[in-house]
């Protein structure tokens, strides 16, 4: 018996019985589509852009598209009960985690952060309303909020068939102390660092309008989340000849966008000063420093081996490295590196480098502007496959 007296069930009941669907179950897909329609109403989403993005993700067309890309669906089934521990900094993250669980055919208990976000309330409320039309799915969604009730975490960990633990690393280490069943699966989403690579040759002679578009995409990858998402680039690699001038032009264009859209607050300024002075003291490979107002700090590093896990910054603090060949990326990336956004390259350029033997970083390589687009491949996991089991029928 699980004591859940102190647990606030925002959505769902206290029935913990095991049930599972096949991935992309029709009812689940319909439910998500209805949820998408409901949340797309501006009266409901109250113009929260992150809710709109989430609603857009749930729409039928996108879900069917994702389904098409998945294989072996007829012999797959959800693991059973998933326990999600979601992060306190991105308000809509819990909802994506829930979708991971639903689409792979599982029942879900999602722990949302104790910190109050209006987005969480709005989405949970929408789920409750839409669920009324989907009686049979009632047991599949439970959203809970509790502060530090270790007993509940411990007990759910023991009964669940899989856990999704979203970072920071402290949370992951804390939750991992609670054992799961021998057969259960643990997925952790640790603190990560991300890169961007720009082919400066492709920026030479570029139209002003086009450069603006690229800079705006870069803005969406970074400042939209204070450069604090794991997939926001922290290190910018520049490849190409004579790129000094073009680099300056890029940052200036970017700076204009930041200044017109972003309100820099005091703690950000203080953070960046502190970070810069600390970098001067601790890093012996700083080649140059340049700032554009206080919005953008660029610390250029020498080509010495750098540890990406030490280059996590925020609020418009970028490290820059010049490279001459794509292969050099393997020197700089390690398991901590999550996303590489790119401009001025082709997809095929990257297939070559991921084959390099000592290339052990980077889980996502996406065009500039798509850093934050969540997908069913995340942190190196093929989500549907890892959250379901395949039944070998011969």
């Amino acid at each position, binding site marked *: 018996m699980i004591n859940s007296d102190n647990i606030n069930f925002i959505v769902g009941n206290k029935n913990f019985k095991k049930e599972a669907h096949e991935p992309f179950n029709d009812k689940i897909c319909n439910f998500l589509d209805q949820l998408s329609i409901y949340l797309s109403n501006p009266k409901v989403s109250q113009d929260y852009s992150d809710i709109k993005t989430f609603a857009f993700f749930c729409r039928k067309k996108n879900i069917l598209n994702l389904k098409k890309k998945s294989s072996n669906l007829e012999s797959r089934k959800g693991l059973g009960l998933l326990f999600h521990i979601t*992060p*306190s*900094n*991105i308000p809509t*993250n819990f909802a994506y985690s829930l979708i991971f669980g639903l689409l792979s055919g599982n029942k879900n208990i999602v722990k949302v952060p104790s910190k109050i976000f209006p987005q969480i309330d709005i989405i949970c409320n929408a789920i409750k309303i839409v669920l009324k039309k989907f009686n049979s799915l009632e047991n599949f969604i439970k959203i809970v909020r509790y502060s530090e009730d270790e007993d509940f975490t411990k007990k759910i960990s023991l009964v669940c068939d899989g856990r999704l633990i*979203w*970072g*920071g*690393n*402290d*949370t992951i280490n804390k939750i991992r102390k609670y054992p799961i069943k021998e057969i259960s699966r643990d997925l952790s989403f640790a*603190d*990560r660092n991300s890169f961007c690579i720009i082919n400066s040759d492709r920026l030479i002679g570029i139209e002003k309008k086009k450069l603006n578009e690229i800079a705006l995409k870069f803005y969406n990858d970074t400042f*939209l*989340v*204070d*450069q*604090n*998402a*794991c997939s*926001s680039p922290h290190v910018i690699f520049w490849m190409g000849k004579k790129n000094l001038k073009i680099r300056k032009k890029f940052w200036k264009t970017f700076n204009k966008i930041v200044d017109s859209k972003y309100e*820099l*607050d*005091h*703690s*950000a*300024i*203080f953070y960046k*000063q*502190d970070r*810069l*002075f*600390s*970098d*001067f*003291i601790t890093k012996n490979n*700083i080649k140059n*420093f340049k700032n554009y*107002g*206080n919005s953008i700090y660029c610390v250029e590093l020498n080509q010495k081996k750098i540890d990406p896990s030490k280059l*996590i910054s*925020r609020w418009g603090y970028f490290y820059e490295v010049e490279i001459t060949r794509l292969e050099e990326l393997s020197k700089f990336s390690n398991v901590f590196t999550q996303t590489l956004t790119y401009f001025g390259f082709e997809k095929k350029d990257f297939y070559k480098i991921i084959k390099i033997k000592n290339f052990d970083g980077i889980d996502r390589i996406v065009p500039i502007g798509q850093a934050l687009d969540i997908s069913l491949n995340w942190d190196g996991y093929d989500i549907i496959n890892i959250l379901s089991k395949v039944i070998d029928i011969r």
Partner: protein
Amino acid sequence: MIFFEKRSDLFSYSKKNKINFFDNSIIKLVNFHYKNCSNYKKILLGLKYKLNNKKISNIPALPVSLFKRFNLHSVKIDKIIKILKSSGTSGSDPSKIFLDSFNSKNQTWVLSKIVESIIGKKRLPMLIVDQDPKGINRSSYNARIAAINGFSIFGKSITYLLNKNNKVDFKKLNYFLSKFGNEKFLIFGFTNLIYEHFLESKLKILHTKSLKNGIIIHGGGWKKLESKAISNKIFKKNLKLNYNISKIYNYYGLIEQTGSIFVECPKCSCFKCSIYSDIFIRDKNLNIIKKNKQKGFLQVLSLLPTSYPGNSLLTEDIAELRNDIKCKSCGESKKFTIHGRSKNSEIRGCANI
């Protein structure tokens, strides 16, 4: 070598004299620390600071948080006689300030001159609104104890108002007042402690008027009062109302620049700079704000730090210049007011750094 000049024109200087003395001295100090503190040198090199710089506005302002993470000192470690540690907010590392005897003596000298300008040369009986630091279980020499020790040299018959349970010891208080209450005496403590014991849970004194001869010197601890929406003005008004105390001096000081504190002028309620200190207000691009009544980051400059590179610091406090207020007792010194700590913003993103 560095020198320390004992000046008598602490607040009575002319603008021109201040520039001659202060600006020249601090530029020399920057160069001294550059030569003697390798971490400081790295910062200056990184910022491409020119050692022949003559403008004090170009001197880099170290974020105060830097003293938490790095050991910054400009004299050999065997010359260090004490390390001041800030109390620090829970969870964060304390600042570490390395003092040699030269630096420490100069701090005491300047502090004593500043306090003299308020209470005069004579030592006064002193009531400290805190526990006896001897009784406090301490692992380090923290800011609160440093302040108590620093200020207690101006008092005699020092009486600690609080017992071990942080409650007012009324027996002690009444004894102190019956003995010294008829003449001038000093009350010293952290702002929030004075508020807590004097105003929130009012002192049950036999004669409330017996505090009227007290001169209050208080500083720090505004954070708690801000959360209760108690301004400096209300604080002063209520002390006057309840105890008829009218001589109340608020001071602003950082442990990173102990000694060269900024004391509030009782006439115009602004903090003023002594000849040993200066300030700049900086905007979001860290450019200097020259206009009055415009809020920005407070940068504090002091001539006192010699054993550590703390002469120019960027604080997290928000302040504004108030040189528009004409005040005879402030003379030509730069004046400012403080609006508390800059707010920690809610950060978006997924990394819990």
